[in-house]
């Protein structure tokens, strides 16, 4: 595992050099079909993100795969996957881009099939490939159109811009998991081996966003206002619905996958705000919104990679990922547990960690969109601000539930009660991730100006320990960390000095706290489910078995179905099958009929050519 890690670090070093001002390296973008590679600021940033996730993922993979039958092919596939991701970022022509893009889709599917062979998983992989290829056709259409107009690396004329943008929004949006095109994501991410999930959730969706950024802000620039509204709407929908569905999940990795949908939504909403702010001739806030999207991209990549690796470690140690069957792991697995606490706090956007800084910036961007004078922008900005703020609140609820169920309280299954801490390499990867959560939060003031430089236009943003943006009360990243730490330390000393009496059982109205009385995640989120009942439409089943002298047994089952699946994709799939049944009638199996089809086609084409239709 040392060679690929060292290679990743080398690439990361190069990317830092490009970002720090060494300028772009390699070839520039061009529309011809000759394969070329190169790296500019935006590519370098995303390459850095990829390498930052690949190294811990590989470190953890070595531990997790020890003794597994398909160890070597899986590790090789993981490295190839990482190379494909870097290939998309370094591609400077259409052929290389699309080739690497397809590899990036296929390699994780292969990894999933190598790691797991059951029928359900094969079906999931089919859904993943089908959705990403159907949607991904948009990427081909967008890029080939751009190449046809000679616009890869240059700005596009006005005419075909709409077509390119629609194709790119569908294509890259599907791969990024933007609602309502996200349907593959919460299926595919949980079934992959954890280090592959980490890369899929942490960086693969980000590479799709990279493609979207290129099209929106370079090749099809200036993006029109409708694109901004579409992005803002889809982003807020993904954010709110993603975290609401994450809340009602019962499996750790599925929850994390839905949370990825949420965070992609936040990033996409920031991009939408950026497009609208640039279109409104407010370049400084446009750049800040752009930087906000990038900062949240970096933050989410780091945190989600770490969370998936922690999930893998927990699944390995406790033998299950069912949230209600874990518990008490902070005591059994302190390194993993504390890293998970940091990761949960960071992704829930609690100060002073990484998620807070990036969400602060995103909210500031939508808020300033909402305070403009254009009525449509102001209303959209206000609604987006309220939606994203509610998302932050929902994320706190979701990740407090996760940390509580997994780490705190008593163990809820024998597996969890006997969990063992993971080996050193995984531990190191997790602790580094936790450290990055703190560092990224504190260094926001230093990072944002660098990110804002990558935005189109030449607006500059001043940085520093406290990020003093115009029209804000400044983001005192370091100040908050220091102040909170200081006051916390003093108070801990003061309260810790009081004499401690013996422990007592927790107050449950005088009852004994028995395992059957343990609070569940479903109970914790019940108020929210009741409030959102009309939207979520949970299904409940209550079975009461009467016995002699009273009720003998009650069985209660509740489930929140995924409405996008049931109401959008199920009818689509039914329609597609019906269409296929109709089309099948054309296939009689008789050779003569096929010759007839060919003849009809040739005559038709000739007729068209004669009439000048194909001239």
């Amino acid at each position: 595992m040392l060679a690929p890690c060292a290679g990743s670090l080398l690439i990361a070093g190069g990317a830092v050099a490009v970002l720090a001002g060494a300028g772009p390296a390699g070839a520039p973008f061009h529309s011809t079909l000759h394969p070329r590679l190169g790296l500019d600021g935006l590519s370098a940033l995303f390459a850095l993100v990829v390498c930052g996730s690949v190294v811990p993922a590989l470190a953890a993979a070595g531990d997790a795969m020890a003794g597994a039958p398909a160890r070597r092919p899986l590790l090789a596939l993981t490295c190839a996957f990482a190379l494909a991701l870097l290939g998309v970022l370094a591609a400077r022509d259409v052929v290389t881009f699309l080739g690497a893009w397809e590899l990036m889709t296929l390699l994780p599917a292969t990894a999933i099939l190598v790691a797991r062979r059951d029928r359900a998983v094969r079906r999931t992989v089919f859904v993943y490939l089908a959705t990403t290829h159907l949607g991904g056709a948009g990427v081909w259409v967008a890029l080939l159109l751009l190449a046809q107009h000679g616009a890869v690396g240059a700005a596009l004329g006005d005419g075909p811009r709409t077509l390119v943008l629609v194709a790119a929004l569908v294509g890259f949006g599907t791969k990024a998991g933007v609602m309502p095109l996200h349907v593959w994501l919460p299926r595919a991410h949980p079934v992959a081996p954890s280090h592959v999930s980490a890369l899929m959730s942490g960086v693969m969706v980000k590479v799709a966003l990279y493609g979207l950024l290129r099209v929106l802000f370079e090749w099809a620039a200036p993006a029109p206002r409708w694109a901004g509204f579409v992005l803002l709407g889809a982003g807020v929908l993904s954010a709110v619905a993603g975290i609401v569905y994450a809340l009602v999940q019962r499996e750790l990795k599925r929850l994390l996958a839905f949370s990825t949908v949420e965070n992609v939504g936040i990033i996409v909403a920031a991009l939408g705000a950026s497009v609208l702010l640039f279109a409104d001739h407010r370049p400084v806030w446009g750049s800040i919104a752009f930087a906000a999207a990038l900062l949240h991209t970096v933050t989410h990549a780091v945190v989600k990679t770490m969370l998936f690796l922690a999930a893998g470690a927990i699944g390995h140690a406790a033998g299950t990922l069912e949230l209600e069957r874990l518990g008490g792991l902070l005591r059994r697995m302190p390194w993993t547990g504390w890293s998970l606490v940091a990761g949960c706090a960071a992704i829930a956007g609690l100060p002073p960690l990484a998620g807070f800084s990036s969400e602060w910036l995103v909210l500031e961007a939508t808020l300033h969109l909402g305070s403009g004078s254009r009525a449509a922008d102001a209303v959209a900005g206000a609604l987006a601000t309220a939606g994203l703020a509610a998302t932050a609140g929902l994320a706190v609820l979701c990740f407090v539930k996760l940390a509580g169920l997994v780490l705190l309280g008593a163990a809820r299954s024998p597996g969890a009660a006997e969990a063992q801490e993971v080996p050193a390499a995984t531990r190191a990867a997790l602790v580094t991730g936790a450290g990055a959560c703190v560092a990224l939060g504190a260094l926001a003031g230093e990072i944002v100006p660098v990110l804002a430089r990558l935005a189109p236009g030449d607006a500059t943003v001043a940085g520093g320990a406290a990020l003093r943006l115009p029209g804000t009360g400044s983001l005192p990243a370091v100040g908050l960390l220091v102040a909170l730490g200081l006051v916390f330390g003093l108070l801990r000393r003061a309260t810790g000095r009081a004499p401690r009496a013996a422990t007592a059982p927790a107050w449950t109205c005088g009852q004994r706290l028995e395992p059957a009385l343990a609070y569940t995640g479903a109970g914790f989120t019940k108020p929210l489910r009741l409030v959102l009942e009309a939207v979520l439409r949970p299904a409940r089943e209550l079975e009461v078995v009467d016995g002699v002298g009273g009720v003998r047994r009650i069985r209660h089952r509740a489930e929140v179905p995924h409405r996008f699946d049931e109401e959008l994709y199920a009818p689509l799939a039914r329609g597609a099958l019906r269409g296929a049944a109709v089309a099948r009638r054309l296939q009689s199996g008789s050779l003569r009929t096929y010759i007839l089809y060919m003849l009809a086609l040739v005559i038709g084409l000739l007729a068209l050519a004669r009439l000048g239709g194909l001239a």
Partner: protein
Amino acid sequence: MTGADAGAGVAQVAGGLVLAPLAAGWIQHLKGRLQGRRGPSALQPYRDLRRLWGKSAVQPSAAGPLYRAAPAVVAAALLVAALVVPVGGRAADWGVGHDALVVIGLLALARGALALSAWDTGAGFGLLGAGRDLTFAVFVEGVLLLVVLLAGRAVGGSTDLVALSGAAAGGAPWHSAAHWCAGAAFALVALAETGRQPVDNPDTHLELTMVHEGPLLEYAGRDLACLQWAAAARLWLMLVLAAGLFAPTTGPFTARLALAAATVAVLCVAIALTETALAKMRILRVPVFVGGAGALCLIGLAGSLVQGA
């Protein structure tokens, strides 16, 4: 740093640390009087805090490090938030800025830490309250941001609390519909945020109805003192924010400080009156209540767009 800034710094710390329990105690005292009782003295919270500080802590048997850390995290978040919120339109430079979103983030940190402590004890009542509290927060945070947006429209969409209280100075802002709507919406969400009636009953002793008090059930001694101070500080911050964002404070700093103090006192009386007149509402009505505040904000936004056009 000017003299006024230094004065503001003293007011921030002294107000947040020392006066916060007084506001809560005074409301209790007024409520007692309004309900025909003698009521506790306004100084009762200080006596409670002193008593708790001298007591030894009792810890539930299942609790771990997150339970032990939570009171200090909650109190630290509230103290830092008190340093962020300006008093009388000014704030000393404590190195933590004075941004409205930072205050909301710090309040979320306090809430999250307390909810985690409830998971750490494993007892149901704390989690019952914490789950409700976090659910309300979803709606409250959304509306609070809308209030900030509306209040900031007058100063180019700033979220700087100093600039915001500058914009509220004088009678001019009250000519805009947005300011009225923002003020009314803030009053509603502040009640939800601080857990006052009709959203939550701060005097409840029934575990099943607790929202904010639920996670406090297991704490004792100095830990409980920290948490009770934090609850009072949360109320204090909301009152000071209301005074800063919506009181027409003009003139020199001392006058503004006096006016802010008077506003806080008036708001305390208003809270006591509301709590006497209104009963606690059903829990599932609360999101509707807060949603109404959100609708008010959107009406205000529409009004300001029409007025601006």
